[in-house]
């Protein structure tokens, strides 16, 4: 009892009390559902009843059935594309703001970049449909000018549309960490590189880029992890060929009435994402630490 009294007054206890509402909230809404999904993935569903005997059959199906393998591979491929496009587009923007915008305007630029993201995501997806569609802005303009005779069909209801829409959605989240990393690059290092004889392009690749890698890796993680499980975008602009693993998970939980298989697919996808995240974190550690 004395020990407890003492503990109650300690700093760590006070810290725990302080975060307890948030902690409770997080446990309730994150940890508990997660545990439920994990448990579910080891059970079997028989129409409306759950058979609670332990089985790994769901995982066997999830990892061996060609359709699930294929969807998982496609999800990975799409999110790798999205990440690559996003980071490649975000880097020059972040570079421009960090190096060419006068310091007192930088905050305004960052603010302007975030403005489109105050609109609902659903709204933005529909806007992309308008832009990319069969009679959309792009096709309308191109046919109007007589550049093409037939509307382009490769830009909507397929994987390209998913990549374009997702890349646009995630760009600010990639710009911010890269911008922060670039802001932290000591400008005298770039001057030193110039002084030591490097031209602009060479000092970018030898100094600026390596020193901003932590930002690039952060951007990669931030974009890659959520896009692999994205569900709305492929559903709305992906067409039948653009569907991803999350659409299949939904299908299992709802129409196919096989929640345990859906749970196993979800947990498998999570495992794969975790693996990639760990690889990125390891790369980040390498860059942050520098040569040992």
């Amino acid at each position, binding site marked *: 009892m004395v020990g407890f009294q003492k503990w109650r007054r300690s700093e760590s206890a006070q810290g725990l009390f302080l975060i307890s509402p948030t902690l409770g909230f997080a446990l309730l809404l994150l940890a508990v559902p997660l545990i439920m999904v994990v448990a579910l993935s080891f059970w079997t569903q028989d129409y409306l009843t759950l058979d609670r005997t332990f089985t790994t059959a769901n995982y066997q199906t999830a990892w061996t059935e060609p359709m699930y393998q294929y969807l998982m591979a496609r999800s990975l491929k799409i999110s790798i594309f999205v990440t690559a496009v996003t980071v490649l587009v975000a880097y020059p923007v972040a570079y421009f703001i960090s190096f060419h915008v006068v310091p007192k305007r930088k905050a305004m630029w960052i603010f302007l970049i975030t403005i489109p993201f105050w609109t609902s995501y659903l709204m933005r997806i529909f806007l992309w449909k308008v832009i990319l569609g069969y009679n959309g802005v792009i096709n309308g303009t191109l046919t109007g000018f007589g550049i093409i005779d037939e509307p382009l069909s490769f830009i909507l209801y397929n994987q390209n549309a998913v990549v374009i829409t997702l890349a646009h959605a995630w760009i600010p989240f990639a710009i911010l960490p890269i911008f922060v990393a670039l802001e932290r690059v000591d400008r005298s290092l770039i001057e030193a590189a110039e002084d030591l*004889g490097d031209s602009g392009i060479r000092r970018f690749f030898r100094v600026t880029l390596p020193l901003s890698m932590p930002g690039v890796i952060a951007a990669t993680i931030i974009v890659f992890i959520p896009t692999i499980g994205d569900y709305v975008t492929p559903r709305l602009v992906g067409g039948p060929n653009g569907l991803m693993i999350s659409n299949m998970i939904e299908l299992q939980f709802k129409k196919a009435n096989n929640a345990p298989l859906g749970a196993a697919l979800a947990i498998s996808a999570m495992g794969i994402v975790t693996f990639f995240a760990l690889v990125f974190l390891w790369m980040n550690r390498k860059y942050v630490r*520098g*040569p040992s």
Partner: protein
Amino acid sequence: MTQPIIRLSGLDKFYGEFQALSQIDLDIQTGEFFSLLGPSGCGKTTLLRAIAGFETLSSGSLHIDGVSMEGVPANKRPTNMVFQSYAIFPHMSVAENIAYGLKARKLPKAEIKASVAEAINMVGLEGFDDRASHALSGGQRQRVALARALVLKPRVLLLDEPLSALDKKLREQMQSELRRLQRAVGITFVLVTHDQEEALTMSDRIAVMFDGKIEQVASPQILYGKPSTRKVAAFIGMMNFLDAKVLTTSGDNLEVEVQSLGKLTLPLEQATGGLDGCNSVGVRPEMLTILMGSQTSEREIEAEVTEVYYYGDMTYYDVKLPAKEDPITVTMRNTAGREVLEVGAKARVGWSTSSLLLLK
């Protein structure tokens, strides 16, 4: 005289309305250890950066080795710089840092390796080749920065307050080491510093700068012994100032009325910055003596001790002269048998006309 390695003429630099450098004319000779000395904000770093190619000139010209540097970017100039922050690349080891400029020149690998090893030797960093920069002390980082610049064998090495981040002991050690290195490699060094002691001990010549202008360029001895203006005299070392007025000039002699000291005849050469606008006389504290017992001096004046600062080897006295409000400072070496006076004591201050400088 041979062609100067650096020639600046009529150099101006504006930042908007603010004039950072105005009408700089300066020649720096080959093989010199040259210092730019001045208080912070006087434009000395701007001048150094202009030589390095990091600042464009608003007007005027800059020649290095007889070649105009107009439009020549920093990476094409025969200069290398040691930055104030050292600017050691954090993602590279010591050896990689030093090899940076050699790699930029695309030299063969074997040659780079040999040069790096030689440079590491020169600055005394043997065994640190693979050390990461964050695992280096301030002094070691400084050595890496030096080696990285010197390995390229520049015509001119520019140093931007390289010692300001080091503690006193290390700073003194690096001072003599820089001097030794400069003699060994024979490269022209241009050093920016706000530390007058550093400039005096290391340099062959010093340019003293105030408010974007060069006030005086001279050797350390001349700068200290014969400063040309009151500003320079006050900035370098300690100096007592007395109001003065030139009464008449006759040939090589000046008739001067000096506060507290009275009417004097001084040789014209003691007006070090010319006669125009001279209104004060300067005298270094160590040129004055507190006379004891039967000691005599060329001239002497009665004074009262108002403050005593005892430093062990030296004693600094503030003494009040008749007809002068602020006290002046006298420094005395504490030799055997010399007693330290107390505040309020009467003192006879010995001085000589040859130690007075007539300044504007």
